[in-house]
Structures are given as structure tokens and as C-alpha cells.
């Protein structure tokens, strides 16, 4: 008796329609997700991470739109009328959200121009970070102190952006100052030796070391070293220590600004107090 009443109930058009929609959703959504995932995996073997993400998102959003259209059709909506209405609504929304559209167009330019890809390290203004995703509206970065930064695509198109990891090797430019009394040729030879001994510094392209100019209080030397991009931090942390230690060892003076403190009257000598207890201790 109960089974019969259930069958009768299923014959109600509304119930049948709801069931059909549920079936579409239950089968359709996981299928789209699955399709997006396996296509993304397959694309990952042949394309870059950025194209892989684009394909994955394209399949996911395209599939969801198709699913929505199917459901609306199932509910009896006339799609032609609906699309017409959507066009009018679209224009209205377009006027109201010009910035978003600008970001979308900029996003399309970024994708086609490819100034950077996912996992590249970029600098925008004072922000450095690893590109996590390139979306239609914005680019997401992860900074080195583990902060999340969202940069609108329009900003990236308008402002100067530096891709730090585009090429496999980079150059580190260091400006060094030595005292005027130093023999400049000897200093250059010592710097060459430091560069040769540093494991992160490349032999070729060879380090570029030259006397740059006569500074206010020092002879300025350019010390330019090539390195593999992954070794940036290692080179930076070692080379400065090595230069300082070697200069100390060789007795080469690195000048620094001196400050003279007056007590208020330039003509009076600076008062010095001698503490006898301290002097005896030393």
C-alpha cells in the first residue's frame, strides 16, 4: 500500500522535476570536478602550471554554467528570453563594475603576454613574492614572510613589475668603498680571489670588478658577481662576511662617516671625565 502511494507521489510533475534536478546536480557536479581534475593533471605534464590552472578553471566554470542552463531548462525557463534579460542585466552590471571588467581585460592581457608564470618571484612596488595564482581579477602572491598579497590585474598592467626569476642566472651588484690610501690593484686582486673561492659565485660569466669613481671619502669599487638564481640568499649571506673578514686580514680599511659631537659651544673643548676605578680595572 505504502509503495503504491510512493509511486503515485512520484507521478506528481513537481516531485519528478525536483528529483531530475537533484540527479543532474548529484551526478553533474562531481563529474565536472573529476573532469577538471584529470584534465588538469594531464595538462600539467605538457603545459606550464599557469596553463594547467587555466584549463582546470575553464572546465570547472564552463561545466557549472552548462549545469545551470540545464537546470533552468528543466525548470521550464525560456533560455532565449533569459539570455536577452541577462544581456540587459549584464550591461547594467557592467556600468556598475567597470573596475572588475578592467581587471578581467587586464587579466586576459597578462595571460596572453605571460610576463610571469606561477612560482615565479616578482616585485611590484615594494612587494616581493612568489606567484601563487593568476586569476581573472587579480594575481595572488605569497611573500617571503608568509603573507598573502592580492594585486589587481589592472595595477600589474599599469605599473612596473620585475620578474626576478625569469632567467636562470642573475648578477649581484655590490658597491664597496676603500680608503684613499689603499692600492686599488691589490684590492681588485683580493676581490677576485674572494669571488673565485665563493662556491655560489659563477666562474663564467666571470665576476666584474672595476674602480668606479672617487667618492667623498672612499675609492668606490664595483663588485659584480653572477650566480644561479636559487643561490641568491646563500651568496648574499656569505660574500659580505668574506669581504669583511678578508679586508680585516689584509689590513684594508673600509672608511665610514665620522661624527663629531659638540657640547653647544664650538670653541670650547668637549669635556672628558676620567673614571679612576674603571681605568684601574682595565
Amino acid at each position: 500500500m505504502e509503495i503504491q502511494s510512493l509511486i503515485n507521489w512520484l507521478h506528481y510533475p513537481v516531485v519528478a522535476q525536483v528529483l531530475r534536478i537533484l540527479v543532474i546536480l548529484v551526478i553533474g557536479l562531481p563529474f565536472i570536478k573529476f573532469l577538471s581534475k584529470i584534465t588538469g593533471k594531464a595538462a600539467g605534464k605538457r603545459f606550464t602550471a599557469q596553463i594547467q590552472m587555466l584549463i582546470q578553471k575553464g572546465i570547472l566554470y564552463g561545466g557549472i554554467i552548462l549545469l545551470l542552463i540545464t537546470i533552468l531548462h528543466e525548470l521550464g525557463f525560456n533560455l532565449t528570453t533569459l539570455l536577452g534579460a541577462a544581456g540587459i542585466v549584464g550591461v547594467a552590471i557592467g556600468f556598475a563594475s567597470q573596475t572588475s571588467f578592467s581587471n578581467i581585460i587586464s587579466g586576459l592581457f597578462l595571460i596572453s603576454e605571460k610576463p610571469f608564470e606561477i612560482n615565479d618571484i616578482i616585485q611590484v612596488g615594494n612587494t616581493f613574492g612568489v606567484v601563487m595564482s593568476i586569476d581573472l581579477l587579480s594575481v595572488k602572491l605569497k611573500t617571503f614572510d608568509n603573507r598573502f598579497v592580492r594585486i589587481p590585474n589592472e595595477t600589474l598592467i599599469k605599473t612596473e613589475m620585475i620578474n626576478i626569476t625569469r632567467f636562470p642566472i642573475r648578477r649581484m651588484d655590490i658597491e664597496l668603498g676603500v680608503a684613499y690610501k689603499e692600492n686599488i690593484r691589490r684590492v681588485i686582486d683580493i676581490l677576485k680571489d674572494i669571488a673565485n673561492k665563493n662556491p655560489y659565485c659563477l666562474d663564467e660569466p666571470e665576476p666584474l670588478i672595476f674602480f668606479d669613481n672617487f667618492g667623498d671619502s672612499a675609492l668606490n669599487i664595483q663588485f659584480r658577481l653572477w650566480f644561479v638564481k636559487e643561490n641568491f640568499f646563500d651568496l648574499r649571506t656569505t660574500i659580505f662576511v668574506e669581504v669583511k673578514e678578508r679586508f680585516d686580514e689584509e689590513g684594508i680599511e673600509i672608511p665610514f662617516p665620522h661624527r663629531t659631537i659638540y657640547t653647544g659651544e664650538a670653541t670650547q673643548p668637549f669635556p672628558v671625565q676620567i673614571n679612576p676605578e674603571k681605568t684601574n680595572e682595565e
Partner: protein
Amino acid sequence: MLICIEDISRNRSLMDKKVWQPFTLEDRQYYSWQIGNLQLHFYKEKDEFSLATEQTEEALSPVHTNNKPEEGLEWKRWIICEHFRSLQFFPVMPDRPLVVKTETPLSLLPRCHESFFISIPLWIQIVLNKKYILTELPTVVLSNTWFGSPFDGILAYPVKSPAATSLSSTDIKSNNVVCPLSVQNHSSENFDFVRLCVYTDNLAIFQGATHLWTNNVSVHIEGIQQAARFDVSSAKPQYESIVKTLSKPRQHPAKGLSKKIFSDLKFFKF
């Protein structure tokens, strides 16, 4: 046949085949082994193998001691889930290509060919129970160099060579392998041999009567602007009698492959 480590201590030459044979490890016993500038210290206890390495100033032929190493070494440990006593060293080629730079400028005239002997520092592969490769270590730590343009080159190790045309004038250290290289200039222009990239992946190592050898490598230059074609011969080198093959190439040799092998590397300096 397994040999005891005591036997190795008497063998001071890489040419002695016992150097490359497995030997037995005793529990709770320290061992040291030096080749070139690389000094290895190892220790076994039940199912655990520990290894520490250090680079020394003096490059030596293989030397073995049973002394306890000094404090302060950084040890690395491996847990092996089976009974093990056998340890073996294998000579292997460096894990990256080598850029050979001639000590003096060298030109090869048109339609001229010459054979050179290039001495290359070895790496050592450490193998437990004949199947577990624990690690590979350089017998000399080489610096890094770049081969190609700054936009799409490759990372390599630099090697300075006199590019000697006879074996007797080649400086071959105890931890080096000799690569016989034949360069054939088929072009109508002088060829300046400035920097040569040796791709080590395709090279095997053979034990000769007096030296370790790689396969013969031949380079064919068709034109200065063209990439050179290089062949790695699968045959054993013919310069002296070959006792055995010590290690296979990391990749199988490719015949007639055209690659960028030479470079004069002109960078804009600014």
C-alpha cells in the same frame, strides 16, 4: 668475493681492482677512506649505517685507516631494514656537464683533426649490499660555471685543461679519469677551441692498466655558426688494455646528436 677492509689499506692505487670491490663492515667499527680531497668516515651498528665527509687540503690516492674520526663532523645516518655487511665504492662521472677551458688559446685549422686527453675529477658512489645507492660525492669540490647564454644555458663544473695531445703530457691525478676527445674540423674556417662542454651523462668509466678511462668522444665541427655534432663511442678506449667496466653511463649514449658544445661566451659587460 668479499674482501676485508684491511686488504684495501694496502692498495694505494685506483688501478688496483680491489679498490672497487666490496668489502665487509664490522659492527661498532670506525672506518676512514680518502680519495683525492675527499675523506669519508663511516660506522656501522646493527641496521644503521653512518657516514661523515670532509674535504682535505691534500689530495691523496685511496688511503684507509681505522682511526676514530675527530669530533665535530656532521654525520648522516641510514637505516637499512635488512642484514648488511657489504660496502662498495664506484667511480662515477660528475652529476653535471663539465666545461673544459684550455689553459692556452688553441686553434684547429680547416679540415684538421686532433685527439686530446682531458683529465676529469671523479665522483664516488657509495653502495650498500650491492644494491642500495646511498649517495654520490665529489672527490674534489669544483666551483660552478655557466655554459651558454644567460637566458638559456646550463649549469656546469669548470675544468682547466692543457688539452694535451699525448697521454704522457697530461696531468692525471689519482682521482681523475681520462676522457679521450677527438675534434674534427670539417669546416673551411679556423676553429678556436675556447670552451668545450663535455656532457658526462653518456660516459662510462673503464679500468685500464694505468688509468681510468671514459668512452671515446668525437666532435665534428661543420661550421663555426652551427652546433657541433658529437658521438660517444660505445667501444672501449683503445689507448691501453681495459681490465673491466667500472660504471655504466647515467644515460645511454646518443649517436650523432647535435648540441651546443663550444662557446666563446661573449657577454656584454656593463
